């Protein structure tokens, strides 16, 4: 196999004294700038650079004055005013300084192109041989090749050392246990409004309305955010007959009031957008769309599983309560959810 494959067309050859390739014509003659040849132009450039530096100083002064002249009070307007003036001052101070230096470099510092030769990156063959000899000598002096007892025990010790290092991280977090499958929902737990935990009567849920729901007692629990991230529920009332019949879910709703997990079965965003006319629930993060009339089956987007339904009923005081927990783990999929 040929590794070198630089070629010229054989057919193109035969031009007598002409070479196969053009020759590099060399660095072209330097072209002088007007600032090199005209003293007045150079003087003008000098004044421009100085003017930019003066502008920079003015920017710094604007920052200093604004810092004291525009204090922050309780209004958003004061924050805006302060940010604009401080930013304008600081921005000018820095930008004009930079422009000045660049302009100085471009117009007044020598711009003669210079040529520097590259040097071989690799060492010479002599260097390589010497380096290899040094390493080999040291290797032999250390005895690591000869003294196999030292070598093998070192390998053994070295292999074991990372284990304590990794094990030390063992308490980064607890084991999951069944935490991903259990929520505060259980038989008799009231459905309450998010966030103030007002219980909800069935008759308050009018057709077409949506309630954002949390289990009663969530705010007083040990870890309210963690519980909410699993237990958040949407409560929707539909016209009778709008929802497909599913004998398995008989008695899970209260007169057309349905409770579904609000946590997307894709990667866990809240499915908070309800389109009343189509009864679609849309996750704003990745657009998984769930059809409430089909028990929140996925009709579009990256989710696969329907939102789990929370079976509900009414307690003796007329408030909506869960009749059990979720029949399956709510939220995003995980390996052992089954």
């Amino acid at each position, binding site marked *: 196999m040929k590794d070198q494959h630089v070629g010229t067309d054989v057919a193109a050859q035969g*031009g007598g004294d002409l070479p196969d390739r053009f020759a590099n014509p060399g*660095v072209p003659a330097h072209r002088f700038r007007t600032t090199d040849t005209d003293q007045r132009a150079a003087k003008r450039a000098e004044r421009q650079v100085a003017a930019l530096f003066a502008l920079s100083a003015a920017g710094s002064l604007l920052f200093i004055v604004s810092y004291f002249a525009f204090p922050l009070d309780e209004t958003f307007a004061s924050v805006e005013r302060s940010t604009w003036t401080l930013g304008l001052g600081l921005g000018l101070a820095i930008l004009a300084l930079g422009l000045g230096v660049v302009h100085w470099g471009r117009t007044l510092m020598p711009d003669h192109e210079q040529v520097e030769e590259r040097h071989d990156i690799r060492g010479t063959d002599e260097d390589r041989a010497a380096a290899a000899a040094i390493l080999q000598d040291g290797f032999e002096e250390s005895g690591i090749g000869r003294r196999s007892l030292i070598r093998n025990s070192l390998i053994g010790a070295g292999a074991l050392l990372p284990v304590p290092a990794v094990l030390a991280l063992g308490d980064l977090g607890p084991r999951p246990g069944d*935490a991903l499958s259990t929520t505060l929902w259980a038989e008799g737990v009231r459905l309450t409004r998010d966030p103030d935990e007002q219980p909800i009567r069935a008759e308050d849920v009018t057709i077409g309305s949506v309630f954002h729901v949390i289990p009663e007692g969530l705010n007083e629990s040990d870890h309210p955010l963690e519980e909410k*991230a699993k237990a958040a529920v949407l409560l929707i009332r539909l016209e009778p007959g709008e929802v497909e019949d599913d004998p398995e879910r008989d008695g899970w709703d209260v007169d057309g009031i349905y409770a579904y997990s609000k946590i997307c079965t*894709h990667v866990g965003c809240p499915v908070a957008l309800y389109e009343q006319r189509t009864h679609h629930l849309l996750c704003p*993060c990745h657009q998984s769309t769930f059809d409430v009339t089909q028990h929140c089956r996925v*009709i579009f987007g*990256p989710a696969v599983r329907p939102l789990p339904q929370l079976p509900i009923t009414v307690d003796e005081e007329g408030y909506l309560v869960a009749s059990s927990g979720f029949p399956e783990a709510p939220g995003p999929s995980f390996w052992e959810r089954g």
Partner: protein
Amino acid sequence: MTTSTTTPTSNSIFGGKAVNYVDDRVGTSKIVRSFARKIFPDHWSFMLGEMALYTFVILLITGTFLTLWYQPSMALTTYEGSYAPLFGQQMSHAYSSTLDISFDIRGGLLMRQVHHWAALLFVAAIVAHMARVFITGAFRKPREMNWVFGAVLAILALAAGFTGYSLPDDLLSGNGLRIIQGVLLAIPVVGSYLSFFLFGGEFPGEVIIPRLFIAHVLLIPAALLATIAVHLALVVLHKHTQFPGAGRTNTNVVGYPVYPVYAAKAGGFFFVVFGIVVLISAFVTINPIWNYGPYDPSPISAGTQPDWYIWFVDGALRLWPGWIGVPGMDGGGIPTEFTFLGVTLSLNIILPGMVLPGLMIGALFAYPFVEQWVTGDTREHHILDRPRNAPTRTGFGVAALVFYLTISLAATNDIIATHFDLSINDLTYVFRTTAIFGPPLAFWITKRVCMGLQRRDRDLALHGRESGRIVRTADGEYFEVHEPLAPAERWALVQQEEIRPLELDPSVKHSPVEKVRARLSSWFFEDRITPVTPHELEAAHHEGGQEGEAISDHESRSAITGSGTQEPAGQQ
């Protein structure tokens, strides 16, 4: 042994005692001698890497300012600061201290916005710099390892961005973390364990902010600094690449010395970048966390986007269909999540969320080595390829960019839908289609455009520039006078090598690997335009003489032969 030093020149301001004091102890004169007049070539695209470096410095400065007030704690507090709409609300110290920086520290909001804008620009500059390095072939030997360090820097930049983005503990970034947790959970076997380890238990827990904080302000910046040091040391060691041009060869560098002119231009450019970022930050709001509110797992607003550099993962998650079926009938067909033997395998999350980014990053790391293997080119390259002269590589680059931009833009499909009153579903189908068919189409178009540009170069080198002057001969024939190019101009158009595919010697038996390699090589190089040779130019002039090209035989010959034969650039 030196006892005292002598003043090198009588009139130098750098010959004083203090300078000699330092030199006696550090040997600075040797360092100055070898580095101060080092030559750097000039080209606007070389500033992209500088821009990445400078925005990183801005991030260090402004980030340090922010840590003076920011509290990385998820413990709850009652907000009593100046922002009235949130007064009295329960929130984490992280969120409340970020509000304080924004509303109660003079210049605090400005610094937050400078930090955020600089971060967005940092990643953008890195991507642009990588694109430049890619399409000019600057990653070729001896710079393959520096490409790898650069790719590591790009990944570290993404990590720095994401960890910082989450620190204010606001609703938007909290949802971002939730998505990360959802993706982690989907990892087979260990997903829920990883999630519980990272978050110290259930999501969101109380430790993720302090953990992200230490990664953001110590671990990742330290890794970035160390990798930048290696990256730049290698640039100095290799000397910078240069674009082809008259006088530029594979064994020299043509440009300006570091001291003083390059230092002034590059140093001044730092302040230009910094100044522009400050001005943008003064007037353009970024990440108004006070509008989002503190993190709560239940509410969310429409139009949730992460920072732009995370879009490609978010977009991929959006585009992957949960059910693969007939277009327009999502929700039927084959599911992409499977439950079997009591476990769940979520391909709808793993493939777009982890496998795809993994493949993209893997391809990034591998490309220089793959190209080197396919082309069999193990020579050193210090002259950059003009992108048109490497059509296959340029095609790859553009195709990769089209894919990256498509899946990135897909993360804004909801914004596009609401702004232009389009169907989100149709948009998603368009993005899915573009992600699949866009890259091959972009590859093909780019390659054709490159070939076309090469043909134009060839034409220009052969026949010169159209002068616009029409001449009528005595016979009544019309022709346009072409002006020949100066040798320096022509050199840029003819300097490239004609690279031919690897050829297998038919008389020898070859291994299947060699055959694959030869096939790839011929695919890589089969479409090529031969650069103009002196002979062809002379032939064209000869022929052109009859057509009336305004060039005498004598002129053409001296222009062609130049100063004599020279080894082709690139031959070692």
